[in-house]
């Protein structure tokens, strides 16, 4: 195993747990806005994971991907919100 610093391992584990907890809400979510919030948070956690990986590997490409994922996640959230407002939950 390559030498990954311990704080980075801890941070990656915590982010994975956060994504798992959010996924439970995505599966349970009583209303549609709950699920949209869960998807939005999963996107943010994914961006966090990419940023940590960029810090560990010193590859700029991870930060570029994080930027694109953040952008697409925002557009998707706004589109879902428009849909909820038109259709009702």
């Amino acid at each position: 195993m390559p030498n990954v610093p311990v704080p980075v391992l801890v941070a990656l584990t915590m982010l994975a747990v956060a994504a798992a907890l959010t996924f439970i809400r995505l599966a349970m979510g009583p209303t549609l806005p709950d699920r949209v919030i869960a998807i939005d948070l999963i996107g943010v956690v994914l961006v966090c994971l990419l940023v940590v990986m960029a810090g560990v590997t010193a590859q700029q490409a991870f930060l570029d991907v994080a930027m694109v994922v953040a952008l697409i996640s925002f557009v998707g959230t706004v589109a879902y919100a428009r849909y909820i407002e038109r259709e009702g939950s």
Partner: protein
Amino acid sequence: MIEWLSGALFIAGATFALLAGVGVLRMPDVFTRMQASTKASTLGLGCLLVGVALRNPELAFVVRAASIAAFMLLTTAVAAHVIARAAARSGAPMWPGTRVDERPREMTVHDAIERTRHV
């Protein structure tokens, strides 16, 4: 020294993300869940980006980290507002302990007549 500082920032940012996950799972209604997710995700991602910029102090990393931070600060608030408005308009149930509900009540014919009389 820088290594320790950036490690501490990584753990702080991951803690905020974990708290957001716990908040989204445990909070009682849509609006409280939304504020947990939004606040913690902005702060958590900010900490992680500062950690990355400290660990790799090159222009390319710092510029990218700063632009991601600025973008998230702008869009998280907008996305949260849009979802909250959609949830409120679609009649999402509120936690029973909510004190202030500024959503307009269903207006009956009697209410409408009263309103025109006062105007």
